[in-house]
């Protein structure tokens, strides 16, 4: 069982999707409970990973599975090559953890075409898990694109007024980026073959050892980096995000924020950075600048939003700026902060979208001006909302603090000192836009009569929020649970990038293809 745990976990939702397809479309309750059970079982299946101590001692890949998949003689070879290490571990856990919550959140919100909705959610889960565990670039690309299709339909069919525009924009932005990455993937592959390096299909561990001349690295890093930067999203490629977030149904926004955006940051950590370390060095100042712009710009725009969901969407841009800045610091603190902040953002922004969903279901509006004084009518909701708001701001004691603090500290101690200084103002901005929004929505007198009869959170809604709140405090108070399993993998990654930079200097023989990229 343990040998096939990862595969089983990844494809179990797909199996669930097939089951869902055979349930009659009229039976909404059964469809929802099936999806819930499937996602819960997937979560249970993933639990052994979280409790496995092997991640605390070794930073390598575990739970490996390897099968030859496509092998056409001297043309190319692709393998079903999967595994997890400390870096992907928590992202896998985040995915399996957030999915049952997302399904639960649809209980009353989705009433048309429940069958399609659930089937797409499950397909999406397989895509996301697959992307996190792929150790073969080709396999990764397939899962990466597979995520696109369900999300497109989730936004387009169940989204808000402007859903068509948002769905098409989301699709085209992401697909354009990934197509360029595809060219880069093929190029690296043939480069490796022609340079005679030992290869294992498109296996990234072999690619890590490849010495690619710096001229080619720049182009390849640009292709990979562009694709991931769209997904993160980094300024100025972020414009699809507010649209997609605002129009998507609650479950879609939650998954988009919690997991899909992490694909971009994860892509940097797993692929773009370790594959092209030399190019990375050149581009870090530019990328860090964009991250800081993202932080400041995202915060400022969030401040001015009249729609709560848009506000949360722009706050995502800012939060991911912290993640990227931490990662680009290229030291342990920064990396750890960035990685943890990925999880934090998943928990707290996911929770924020759920909260927006709660009030939208009650009032069918998300405009801040429509609300005010909700705390009187919904005390439990007010408490929950406040906790999540604090977590999003990064108040000490909550998860946001640990992540942002470490990311900024890492950046401060690396060559990005002044970037960190500027970025820190983003924390203050976050307090401004979040607290201001909270105040306008929750405090004061009830001015809008429509808010007089609002009901407090139902048992289902409390059940949805409790696990998220648990993690807000767990990560905030004792982040070591997470760090101890992350650290070995990150150390290994950083060491490997350093040694690669040294190795790249000793040039290997020029393969034929290199001449097309103007490489001296």
């Amino acid at each position: 069982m343990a040998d096939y745990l990862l595969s089983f976990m990844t494809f179990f939702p797909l199996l669930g999707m097939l089951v869902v397809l055979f349930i009659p479309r009229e039976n909404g309750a059964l469809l929802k409970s099936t999806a819930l059970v499937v996602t819960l079982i997937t979560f249970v299946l993933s639990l052994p990973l979280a409790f496995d101590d092997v991640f605390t001692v070794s930073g390598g890949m575990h739970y490996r599975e390897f099968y030859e998949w496509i092998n056409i003689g001297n043309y190319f070879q692709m393998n079903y090559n999967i595994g997890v290490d400390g870096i992907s571990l928590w992202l896998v856990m985040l995915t399996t953890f957030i999915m049952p919550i997302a399904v639960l959140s649809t209980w009353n919100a989705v009433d048309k075409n429940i069958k399609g909705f659930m089937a797409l959610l499950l397909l999406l889960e397989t895509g996301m898990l697959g992307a996190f565990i792929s150790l073969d670039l080709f396999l990764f690309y397939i899962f990466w694109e597979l995520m696109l299709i369900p999300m497109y339909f989730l936004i387009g069919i169940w989204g808000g007024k402007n859903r068509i525009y948002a769905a098409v924009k989301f699709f085209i932005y992401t697909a354009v980026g990934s197509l360029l990455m595809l060219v880069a993937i093929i190029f690296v592959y043939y480069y490796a073959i022609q340079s005679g390096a030992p290869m294992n299909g498109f296996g990234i561990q072999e690619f890590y050892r490849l010495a690619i001349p710096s001229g080619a690295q720049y182009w390849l890093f640009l292709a990979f980096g562009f694709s991931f930067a769209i997904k993160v999203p980094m300024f100025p490629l972020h414009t699809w995000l507010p649209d997609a977030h605002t129009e998507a149904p609650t479950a879609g926004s939650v998954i988009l924020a919690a997991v899909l955006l992490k694909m971009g940051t994860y892509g940097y950590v797993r692929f773009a950075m370790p594959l092209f370390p030399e190019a990375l060095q050149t581009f870090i100042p530019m990328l860090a600048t964009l991250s800081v712009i993202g932080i400041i710009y995202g915060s400022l725009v969030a401040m001015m939003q009249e729609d709560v969901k848009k506000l949360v969407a722009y706050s995502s841009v800012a939060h991911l700026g912290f993640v990227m800045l931490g990662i680009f610091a290229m030291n342990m603190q920064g990396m750890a902060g960035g990685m943890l902040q990925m999880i934090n953002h998943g928990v707290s922004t996911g929770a924020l979208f759920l909260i927006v969903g709660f009030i939208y279901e009650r009032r069918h509006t998300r405009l801040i001006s429509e609300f005010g004084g909700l705390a009187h009518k919904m005390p439990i909701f007010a408490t929950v909302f406040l906790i999540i708001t604090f977590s999003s701001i990064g108040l000490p004691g909550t998860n946001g603090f640990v992540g942002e603090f470490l990311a900024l500290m890492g950046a401060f101690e690396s060559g990005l000192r002044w970037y960190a200084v500027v970025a820190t103002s983003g924390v203050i901005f976050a307090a401004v836009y979040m607290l201001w929004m909270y105040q306008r929505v929750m405090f004061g007198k009830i001015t809008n009569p429509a808010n007089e009869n609002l009901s407090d959170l139902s048992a289902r809604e409390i059940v949805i929020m409790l696990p998220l709140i648990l993690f807000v405090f767990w990560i905030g108070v004792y982040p070591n649970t997470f760090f101890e399993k992350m650290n070995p993998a990150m150390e290994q990654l950083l060491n490997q990038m350093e040694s690669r930079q040294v190795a790249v200097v000793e040039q290997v023989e020029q393969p034929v293809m290199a001449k097309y990229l103007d490489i001296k």
Partner: protein
Amino acid sequence: MENLVQIAMANVNLQAIMPSLVLSCFGMVLLLVSVFLERGRTAPVAWLSIIGLIITGLVSIGAWNQPQAGFAGSVVLDNFATFFNITCLIAAGLTILMSDSYLHREGYPVGEYYPLILFTTAGAMWMASGTDLMTIFLGLEVLSVSLYVLAGFFRGQIRSNEAGLKYFFLGAFSTGFMLYGVALLYGVSGTTKVAGIAQAIAALPDAATNPMVIAGATLLSVGFLFKIGAAPFHMWTPDVYQGAPTPITAFMSAGPKAAAFAAFMRVTYISLDSLQTDMSALFWLLAVLTMTIGNFVAISQRDIKRMLAYSSISHAGYALVGMVAWNEIGFSGILFYMLVYTFMNIGAFAVLVLLGKKGEDNLTLDGVAGFGFKRPFLGVALCIFLFSLMGLPPTAGFTGKFFIFAGAIKAGYIWLAVIGVLNSAVSLYYYLRVMVYMYFRDPVEDYSWVKLEMATVVSILIAIAGVLILGVIPGPVMELAKLSVF
């Protein structure tokens, strides 16, 4: 006289033309059969044609790995030909499956329709196995003449008439160019044999600058480029594709196109091998032009058949990328892609066949509003085909494109691959738009006229199976494609 016959017979090797021979015989017999059937009864002819195709397929497969040459080396049945034969047979089979209910709905239940498809397929198979420019030309003519008739098959419909006539006039014109090219190459080399021309050109000291060689090669290419619908010889495709009966459009975009690619590849890579640099440069330009024109013009189409016509132009462009690569991966990539394209494009047209009302005026974007919800099976099927046409995993469209672009990148044409994938990005827009209408718009009609005709559904299911299997486990077929290149 007797001597002559003996000499001729000595070179005859019926084995080498067995597949097309069997198919032609079936076609001729079926012509007779349809005469004896009562008017309006075409189903038996359709089923017999399917049987004919299957038998031909078995005969073809029997020749795998046992190359046969015949008729003094003007025909060869090698793996390359067999691969294309199978592709054309699949195209014809899927087309026939979706045709019968369609012909009845449109009011033209005429039995000759099926033999004509068989003749077209036989012609396509001659083209794929021709090793003499004259054989290739003969195959091309058999294919074309049958297709002219099929395109204008609905003689009472103005659009169908226009399609037939336009195809005929432009087609005749392009074959003229081609013949002129053949004549010039004959003038240079003194032979029409593909291999002989290669030797003659290689022996020329100034092959790359010899005006006769250049003019001959160019004019010959024009004929093929016309058939595959590559820019700037694509002008006929939109009108013909839109006007022809939908199953014929589907067939035309897959079978004959594959055959034209087969002959084009054989002639180019064997006869014109010594002109590689120049031809590659020419193809580079044509590939970029074809992809770009096809994709950008498709964006503004509201008629789905016409949109698919422009999309088929762009797909010809992707296949041309494989020609530019001029390496084994590129070659076998084209073979693989033609098979993939057969499944995905014919599948998409099969859904349109069921969706159309009599006269098919409703096959526009507005005409599919909310279709996906009202007809879930057909909706999902069309989505799968469109995703495949976009080139998204896990469909065959992705593996096909991957194969071709991999060939180009390996040969160092990185910018061509970049232009290619950017073109795919453009194509996302118009394929997605069909889905936008199908799923994101509210239905205005109830689509009660859409009936799930058994045979058509079977062809859709086969196409889905093809698209998904070649997408998830492409290995075995890629291996076959690899074994098929010369």
